[in-house]
């Protein structure tokens, strides 16, 4: 029901509720304290962590010690995996070492633009779903791939707005629009969102959530930027729920002229 959606607008992924529609990452920060403060300020409840950066076997690992598992759902990612085999291996490591069974699937064999490999991503997703993981795959904004991943049992699809770390905004806007239109699972726009307005734009289109890392981490004031993104995501979501009237190239008077009595 529309009313309940207004009153209770939680993001639900694989049956779990999140109050915030902003997901955050942990890379590129100058120090763990700043990272932790920024994530807190973002209001995010789902935080992704690169397994290649942490030592899950070490309870004193400095990054993990700054992220309370009671405050956040930690979403390990397979960053660094170049094929399905490596992604599956690292996901299993996360489960064995830390009991993590949600995984952000990233298979990016090309180290420069770090674009996800669709073939290996689908292959890995099928294996991980079969293994009982809740899989959130990072993909290029490819509607067909999104459908195939949904069919494979993925919990979300996470299309990129622009190559990771570029802050170029919604360069894949039209394709993301198709994915939003066709998906039954939450669509999380991931990568390339450099400004809160980019995140707002994605949410206005009907994306279910945004994931932001670089733009927050490299800001002069990451905590403030995290708040700005949270506000951008909320604003875009509110506009979507409010049923915005879209945009037009033609001027439209804000006081309708039709029906006015004209004097002759």
């Amino acid at each position, binding site marked *: 029901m529309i009313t309940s959606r207004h009153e209770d607008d939680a993001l639900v992924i694989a049956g779990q509720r999140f109050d915030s529609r902003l997901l955050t990452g942990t890379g590129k920060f100058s120090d763990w304290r700043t990272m932790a403060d920024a994530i807190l300020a973002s209001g995010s409840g789902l935080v992704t962590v690169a397994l*290649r*950066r942490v030592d899950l076997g070490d309870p004193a690992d400095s990054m993990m010690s700054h992220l309370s598992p009671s405050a956040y759902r930690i979403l390990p990612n397979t960053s*660094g995996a170049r094929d399905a085999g*490596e992604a599956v291996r*690292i996901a299993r*490591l996360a489960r064995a070492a830390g009991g993590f069974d949600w995984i952000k699937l990233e298979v990016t064999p*090309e*180290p*420069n633009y770090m674009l996800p490999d669709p073939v290996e991503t689908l292959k890995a997703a099928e294996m991980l779903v079969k293994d009982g993981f809740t899989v959130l795959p990072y993909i290029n904004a490819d509607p067909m791939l999104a459908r195939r991943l949904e069919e494979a049992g993925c919990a979300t699809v996470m299309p990129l707005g622009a190559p990771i770390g570029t802050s170029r905004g919604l360069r894949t806007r039209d394709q993301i629009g198709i994915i939003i239109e066709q998906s039954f699972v939450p669509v999380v726009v991931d990568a390339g969102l450099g400004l809160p307005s980019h995140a707002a734009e994605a949410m206005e289109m009907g994306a279910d959530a945004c994931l932001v890392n*670089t733009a927050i981490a490299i800001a002069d004031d990451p905590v403030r930027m995290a708040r700005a993104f949270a506000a951008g995501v909320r604003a875009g979501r509110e506009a979507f729920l409010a049923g915005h009237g879209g945009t037009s190239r033609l001027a439209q008077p804000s006081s309708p002229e039709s029906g006015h009595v004209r004097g002759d």
Partner: protein
Amino acid sequence: MAALADRIDSTTGEQVRRALAMERPGPKEVAALVSPASRAFLPEIERRARQVTLHRFGRVVQLFAPLYLSNRCTNRCAYCGFAADSDIRRADLTPVRALENARILHEQGFRHVLLVTGEDPAYYGAGDIEAVVRVVSDLFHSISIEVFPMSAQDYAHLAAAGVDGLTLYQETYDLATYAAVHLGGRKRSYEHRLEAMEHGGGAGFRTLGIGALLGLSFWRTEAVVLAMHAAYLSRRFWRSRVALSFPRLVDAGRGFPVAHPVSDDDLSHMMCALRLALPDAEMVVSTREPAWLRDRLVGLAVTRMSAGSRTSPDGYITSGAGQQFSVLDDRTPAQVADMLALAGYDPVFKDLDRALRAR
């Protein structure tokens, strides 16, 4: 090379401005960006480099340590402390002794290591290196090698044993200079060395490290060819990340004159120009450089640094064996990490996982 040097030298300020106006200057623009005319634009080049580095890599710098396994060498490179005719104490590490050195690095916090040897494969070959890789494997999440040119098969074996990075400097891309300073041994062949990087790319190493030994030839021309080499490797071996190193010739006690000195500003200029053309390349600065300069280069272009380096075999336990070069930044790894933190950078000791390394 002469034609290239002419093109660089005759670059106008307008051409530099045009290169800088591009959203993404490519390797073709490096000639303009390192030209004498570009020196007037250095503040702008540095500003752009800082911005690109921050965007692509964030506020982090990776730390690693070299582990010298052998200083035996059959080459006669006029500039190198390990040269066959250099009067130094030779030494090489057994796997057990290498492990003892590796444990010290591990205790210092290192999880990325670079294994280094000279070139004497009959005495210390691919099999010896592989034996070391296997015994130190559990201590490190990333193992790179900077050894001698190998066959595709040897590289494949090492990759399978868990080596994820290959570094092999061409030393100079100027053929005449190359011939003049490489006086004996297998290294006399420019092509043999260049081809080895192809074999390494084919073996699937995650990182392919290249560089020119700065001071041998003109740095501006070296920068242009280095950028072309890097761009080629990225395109051909698209699964590998290219890493660029910028070793400047330092005195190895052989009285070798530096024919083309590279100033601190030149070094910074070269790194920043290449950063604009190769935004995703790792850039490495070693302890050959003084502390103050390394600190300055952080943030501009550098993404990886060695720290606490000992440049002789067994150097983390004993001294006495001949070293390749003398270290100018002798701060401990902890001191370098503190410097990075103070400068607003996260010192990263682990940026790979052995689960991603093992085949």
